[in-house]
């Protein structure tokens, strides 16, 4: 991945290397698997989706003359009778970063062809993702119970609820899709599809451990988006 040799030549680094890669034939991203390049470009596109959501949120929040609810209070959770601000959100962040770490290790063990470790780590990631979705469902139901709706809420500007449900919902959808794929890949790893290069059921393409890395990219991206949502929605 990092230092591919082409024709026995060590590739140059830095901007000089970039110029040569760009000017070369066949591939621009030297040594990058097609699927991985595709996932990167897809994530770039998805970044624009989330950016547009967050920009819309920023514009909505910046231009409302009605007071914006204080997220620190809205998202507080009672722990042993004391309201702790953002407790649930902190836990969710913790869970998601944990799962991101296990995913990173799964990729590593996948490339080392350590089938068992890779499988268990993907399973752990999937369970982490599932926990996250569960906590988000709890958070949603709690807010709905408190009277927050997409079209109104008792704390202030109506757009608060709108943006909250839309953005976290869109992110949650990403997490859920990721979890489904994690379980599928977990099965495929344990079944040894990537060791023997078994063909996929739909695409008829040969399996390879690079697919774990591709899924890993997606999963880290979901974590990355959460970092931004956490900062802009919950902390700001």
């Amino acid at each position, binding site marked *: 991945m990092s230092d591919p040799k*082409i*024709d026995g*030549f*060590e*590739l*140059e680094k830095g901007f000089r290397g970039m110029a*040569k890669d*760009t*000017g*070369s*034939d*066949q*591939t*621009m*991203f*030297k040594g*990058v698997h*097609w*699927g991985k*390049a*595709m996932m990167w*470009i*897809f994530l*770039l*596109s*998805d970044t*624009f*989706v989330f*950016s*547009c*959501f967050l920009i*819309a949120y920023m*514009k*909505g929040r910046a*231009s*409302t003359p*009605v007071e914006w609810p204080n997220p620190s209070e809205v998202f507080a959770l009672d722990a042993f009778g004391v309201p702790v601000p953002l407790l649930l959100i902190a836990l969710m962040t913790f869970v998601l970063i944990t799962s991101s770490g296990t995913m990173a290790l799964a990729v590593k063990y996948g490339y080392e062809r350590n089938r068992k470790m890779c499988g268990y780590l993907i399973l752990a990631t999937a369970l982490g993702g599932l926990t996250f979705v569960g906590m988000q469902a709890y958070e949603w139901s709690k807010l709905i119970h408190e009277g927050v709706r*997409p*079209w109104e809420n008792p704390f202030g*500007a*109506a*757009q608060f*609820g*709108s*943006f909250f449900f*839309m953005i976290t919902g*869109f992110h949650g959808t990403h997490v859920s899709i990721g979890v489904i794929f994690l379980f599928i890949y977990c099965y495929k790893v344990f079944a040894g599809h990537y060791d023997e290069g078994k063909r996929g059921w*739909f*695409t*008829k*393409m*040969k399996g390879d451990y690079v697919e774990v890395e591709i899924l890993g990219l997606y999963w880290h991206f979901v974590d990355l988006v959460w970092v931004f949502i956490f900062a802009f929605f919950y902390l700001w």
Partner: protein
Amino acid sequence: MSDEYENKSSYQAQSSETISGTGSGVSPDMDYVRPAENPEQDLYHAHSFIEKWVFCQDAKVIGVQYFLTAVFTGVVGLILSWLMRLQLGFPGLAGFITAEHYYQFVTMHGMIMVVYFLTALFLGGFGNYLIPLMVGARDMVFPYVNMLSFWMFFVAVAVLMASFFVPGGPTGAGWTLYPPQTILEGTPGHGWGILLMLISLSLFVIGFTMGGLNYMITILQARTRGMTLMRMPLTVWGIFTATVLAMLAFPALLVSSIMMTLDKLLGTSFFMPTILKAGEVLEYGGGSPILFQHLFWFFGHPEVYIVALPAFGIVSDLISVHARKNIFGYRMMVWAIVGIGALSFFVWAHHMYVSGMNPWFGFFFASTTLIIAVPTAMKVYNWILTLWRGNIRINTVMLWCLGFIVTFVNGGITGIFLGNVSVDVPLSDTYFVVAHFHMVMGIAPLMVIMGAIYHWFPLVAGKMLDEKLGKWHFWTTFLGAYSIYFPMHYLGFIGVPRRYYEMYDSPYMTSGVGLNEFISTAAFIVGAAQLILVFNIVKTMKTGKKAEKNPWKANSLEWFTSTVPPEHGNFGERLPVVHRWPYDYNVPGAGEDYLPQTAAPSEVAHTEVEKT
């Protein structure tokens, strides 16, 4: 780049020129091209009729599927424009066209033509067919995803067409779908119509993303040996840059569609301000309609170039082939395409000068808009300089290209008018604007599409289209289209507003009445003239003469497939190896007037061929 550096670690494609000099460690063979990086592509061959023609994974079939579906929507769009012209030219003649219908026609015509016709045709149709062939790949890199992409597009079109048949009919909010009126009572199709439109757009974006990933990765990572980026035909450059724009601009459309769907269904107020209706305050409040306009045009302006850039690319190739001359300033052309693409993300609010946005924005966006005219003008100069002293063959393809240059220059110049705030404000929402964008992104790209059809039909179908019919087709379309849109500039100057159902007896617009009748008549003729093409295709398929291989004596790889039309896998046993750019026409010293991209340097050592 110093020679020493080149020889030290050259993993670039080698041609005779690049390895001349003090070679060390590099093969002295002048035809050397470094070995393949990518493995031979694992192709899934179809096993049944359904896999071969319906759920096909071959990019060429997918391209044709895209093409036919897009043309179908285009015909619907054309019929809608006829109905609009019928109303405008001869108000009351067709009694069934009510004001509501008129707005629905306007809306659906705009959306269909921009998104479902031109975008799908250029990127889905020409992109799928030509990219793998032109870069020397066996297929797109993810054939299965590519197949899904087409079917997602198909579903999107089905949903869009379904909106004609739902209660209330399709949406009539204008193709820009501006809230708040889009989803409020009083706008035609404010119920089911707009909902299906938004769903259809979202599906289109999802489907396009799947296709776009394919186009990008195929161009970036699956070129054949020797095919550097700067040896790609400009067609590929145009489609590639347009795909990049689409991948980055469609997200804004998706987001605005989702938000408006929520406004419609859940009663959120992202875009909906407090509204009084018949003295009653609606549930909505606190939203910002301007936000929608920003999101929409953040998509909408790159969209203009998503349509224009493939046309630029294709027309460059056609002009070069049919003027038997290399394209003038190839690198400048590439950088102009890339530059236009990059700049197109910084100009969007010139569509919003009268929207009530921050007034300071006018300065910023007028500047960027006028800057984007520079690379565009460069391209026009280069097309003309390519023609200059070329061995021009005035065949049908060349006629369409010349038609493109004329209409594009015309539309581009009115664009300079409209880019300036102080000129735009009085002209805003008049027929001047209609004339401008139809010239620049309606007729001009359409000319290229027609030229491309006449040019590549022998490749796709293996038969030559009839030249005589082609010329009739061109001249009626070109003169007719000019008769439609040129008078519209004048209508705009006298103040005829666009999107008006009827002008009634306005004393200001008496001279517009006759013109409107004239324009409408021309529109009927031009629309009907397209039947010449249909007839030509049918006739050719039945009795046309069989095309020889590479009938235009072109250089690019799509003409050097193992069979015509190319089969699955494109190039037979061995992939072609590329030694040069595709524009070596009339090279001094060469016997033929063209050198294919695959001609090895040793074969042409005696010629004065350029280093590419």
